[in-house]
């Protein structure tokens, strides 16, 4: 059965590209543009992996991780943050057990695929 990936990023082009790339690799991909939308559907989709943009309007990426954690949904999902920010803010250090990778944009396509596959392998 295909592993399920949620990609949430307010940049639609980014979501489309990642969706296309990962579908080619055999993943079932659910692209979303808003943290709120993601929070509503994550329970139903039950993803194995989530790729979450840090800087989104409304609910930002770290806030989304915090809400997932508070609802007990983050415990078994392998989460990677997607970001143009070079360094994560230490104020989110309490969420470190829930975030396994930190992928900087722009990324090289082979690197993204390698890292998502690596996440899947853990």
């Amino acid at each position, binding site marked *: 059965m295909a592993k399920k990936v949620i990609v949430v990023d307010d940049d639609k082009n980014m979501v489309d590209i990642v969706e296309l790339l990962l579908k080619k690799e055999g993943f079932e991909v659910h692209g979303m543009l808003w943290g709120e939308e993601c929070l509503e559907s994550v329970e139903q989709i039950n993803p194995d992996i989530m790729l979450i943009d840090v800087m989104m309007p409304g609910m930002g990426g770290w806030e989304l991780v915090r809400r997932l954690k508070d609802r007990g949904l983050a415990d078994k999902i392998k989460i990677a943050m997607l970001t143009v920010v070079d*360094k994560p803010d230490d104020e989110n*250090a*309490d969420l*470190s057990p829930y975030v396994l990778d930190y992928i900087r944009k722009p990324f090289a396509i082979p690197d993204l695929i390698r890292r998502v596959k690596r996440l899947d392998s853990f």
Partner: protein
Amino acid sequence: MNNIKAVVIGASIGGMDALHRLLPKFKTDSYSVFVIQHISTGLVERFVNQLSRKCILDVEFGRDDMPVETGKIYFPPGDNHMEIKIRNDAPTISLNKDPPVNFVRPSLDVLMKSVAETFKENSVGVILTGIGKDGAEGMRSIKRSGGKTIAQDEATSVVFSMPKSAIHTRCVNRVLPLHQIYEEIMAYL
């Protein structure tokens, strides 16, 4: 009398990959290795089981009152602090559910401070990639007890803030790329 040598390693974001590269290199039974990866309780068992299949040394979850043996790699079970204490003249694992330290449980500071106290100059502390400052005070304790300390460098860290916090204590002996860390640990042991 405790003559066991100890290596204590900590990581958070990016650490799963780093540990998969580092831990399989440990191959002799002349020391014990204690490891904390900041990871959710829902994923830790799978992660440790995977590592145990890749490693030469036995990889185990520490249990309360378990005597420390050489030639083993110990992880704390999820949501527990792990400390090493002397009981009946022997290093022994102790688990507790005290409040999180640096927002996390298990905390690397808690483990490293106990390793520094128990193994003194026979200890090596290593901070790998990660977010936050967990482990910085633990590295200070190890250095002050006569042990050696190593931090992963920025170029090979997915997130550098945890190694950087340790480096800022001025208690880090060497800052190294991931692929050089094992050899440096062995040089200290």
